[in-house]
């Protein structure tokens, strides 16, 4: 694991990618910091961080697109997968190297509140809680990018997919408002999701009986819950979609609240996507 970690770290720091990534974060963050905190003299660093969360839409693909797609394209994955190292260690090494690169600008940004403190009174706990939240937010999105890099051989496709999915996650508040919050419409949306899950299971297993059973059980379950207690469904689709809005879980940190559920959420996103990445690589070996 350490070998992969060191190798990736070196490759980020000997090529342009790592520096472009770090410089881009610092540039955008610097502009917002100057505008909000220095010019406008706002004592709230969290607001600055929360207004640059759109950054991740651009920088995450830059960082993650090559991490696994390139290995597959150059056939260097043959070296990694035939070495006496389990797949999860390879994936984790790669993920941690990206997190380390991402930590560099975050650590630099941790000096900004000190600069502000020179010229006025600010709340350091509030500022640093926001920085910690910002760090975890980035870690979660990098995990998404890691997974999407493992599904394709092409860096461009990996980058576009990452951008698309992170964009949907970023715009989830808007997407939620497409649905009305009545119980009926919510139930219908869940029925559609149940059927989609059935189709996905069929695509993965090619077993029509199993997949229709899964789809059927979910559809019946949703319908049954609706007939027993329809009020559960009121606004449920919004709550469900909100799970996918990664950046929304950063809001509490901005306000200076050390939100443990937020951290648990981000770490779960990391675990799920690292796990999916490992599974995706394993699946390719079996098919």
């Amino acid at each position, binding site marked *: 694991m*350490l*070998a*992969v970690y*060191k*190798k990736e770290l*070196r*490759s980020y720091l*000997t*090529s342009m990618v790592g520096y472009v990534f770090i410089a881009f974060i610092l540039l955008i963050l610097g502009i917002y910091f100057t505008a909000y905190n220095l010019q406008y003299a706002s004592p709230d660093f969290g607001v600055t961080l929360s207004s640059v969360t759109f950054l991740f839409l651009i920088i995450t693909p830059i960082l993650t697109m090559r991490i696994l797609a390139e290995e597959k394209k*150059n*056939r*260097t*994955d*043959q*070296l*990694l*997968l*035939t*070495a*006496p*190292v*389990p797949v999860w260690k390879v994936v984790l090494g790669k993920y941690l190297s990206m997190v380390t690169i991402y930590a560099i600008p975050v650590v630099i940004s941790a000096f900004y509140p000190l600069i502000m403190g020179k010229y006025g009174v600010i709340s350091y706990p509030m500022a640093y809680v926001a920085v910690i939240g910002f760090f975890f937010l980035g870690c979660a999105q990098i995990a998404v990018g890691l997974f999407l890099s493992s599904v394709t051989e092409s860096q461009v496709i990996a980058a576009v997919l990452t951008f698309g999915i992170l964009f949907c996650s970023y715009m989830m508040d808007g997407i939620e408002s497409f649905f009305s919050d009545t119980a009926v419409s919510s139930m219908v949306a869940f029925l559609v999701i149940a059927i989609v899950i059935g189709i996905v299971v069929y695509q993965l297993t090619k077993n029509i009986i199993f997949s229709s059973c899964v789809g059927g059980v979910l559809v019946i379950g949703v319908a049954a819950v609706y007939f027993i207690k329809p009020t559960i469904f009121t606004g449920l689709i919004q709550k469900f979609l909100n799970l996918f809005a990664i950046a929304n879980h950063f809001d509490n940190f901005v306000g200076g609240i050390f939100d443990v559920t937020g951290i648990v959420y981000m770490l779960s996103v990391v675990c799920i996507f690292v796990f999916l990445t490992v599974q995706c690589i394993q699946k390719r*070996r*079996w*098919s």
Partner: protein
Amino acid sequence: MIEVRNLVKKYGDHIAVDHLDFTVEKGKIYGFLGPNGAGKSTTMNMITGYIASTEGEILIDGHNILDEPEVAKKKIGYLPEIPPLYQDMTVMEYLKFAAELKSIPKEEREKNIKEVMSTTKLEDMKKRLIKNLSKGYKQRVGLAQALLGYPEVIILDEPTVGLDPKQIIEIRDLIKSLGKKHTVILSSHILSEVSAVCDHVLIIDRGKLVASDTPENLSKVMTGMNSLELTVKGEEAVIRDALGMVENIEDIAYHSSMTEGACDFTIKISGDMDMRENIFFALSEVKCPILRMQPTNMSLEEVFLKLTNDEGRLEDKEMEGEK
């Protein structure tokens, strides 16, 4: 050392490897021979644990590659068809990374890398970026990587493809010297290469094992097909008549010759008789000098045809025996 039992790999409906069964013994050089797409690389990828088999099992020194991947993979060094090289690393960096990946203990790493580089003659290149190396050197870096940690089994997928003749000879000599300490499996679609280097040859066609024997025995099979190439000075009709007098000739095929006033022939002789002397005397009587006479080198395709036909015949005989 390696046991392959009932190995099957399916890609959708396509069967790439079809019930392979063989054992590899310690300290020998094995050659996988087959045309492109015969399933050589797929089999090697399965032995090294890069891809999983659909059916069957592979045991490396008693360890199943899928159940105990770490133990089994430690015993294998693998050079795939395309060497898995990171273009932006120097040779030294790459080998250090590979050594660390193979969890060679820290204190041995340095020494090991040095030895491997001297075996593959890479010392002068150690500070060069891999992307600036020639194909031959890239192949050597790949080979050096496979040798790191001196695994018991070394698997090489078409190690000489794309190299110039001098490099091919160097790599072959290297493989021969490796065979003294390690078990080596290499694949190739060149018959002469496999028979020159290997102690044992496995011929694969369309995913099936067609033959498994020593090169000596296989060459006996091949000479059984008696065929000669001749260049004779003189008129075609005269030569044909003269050759017609010789017994055991099945077929005479005429080709136009590069040499002026001469004719080329391919002659097929039935049975295992050596008819070269008879042909010489027959042609000397009509005063047609033989400029060239040599046994036809069997191409791989012909070997396959021969082997598959033989197998067909054997099965027929067994069927008759049952009746």
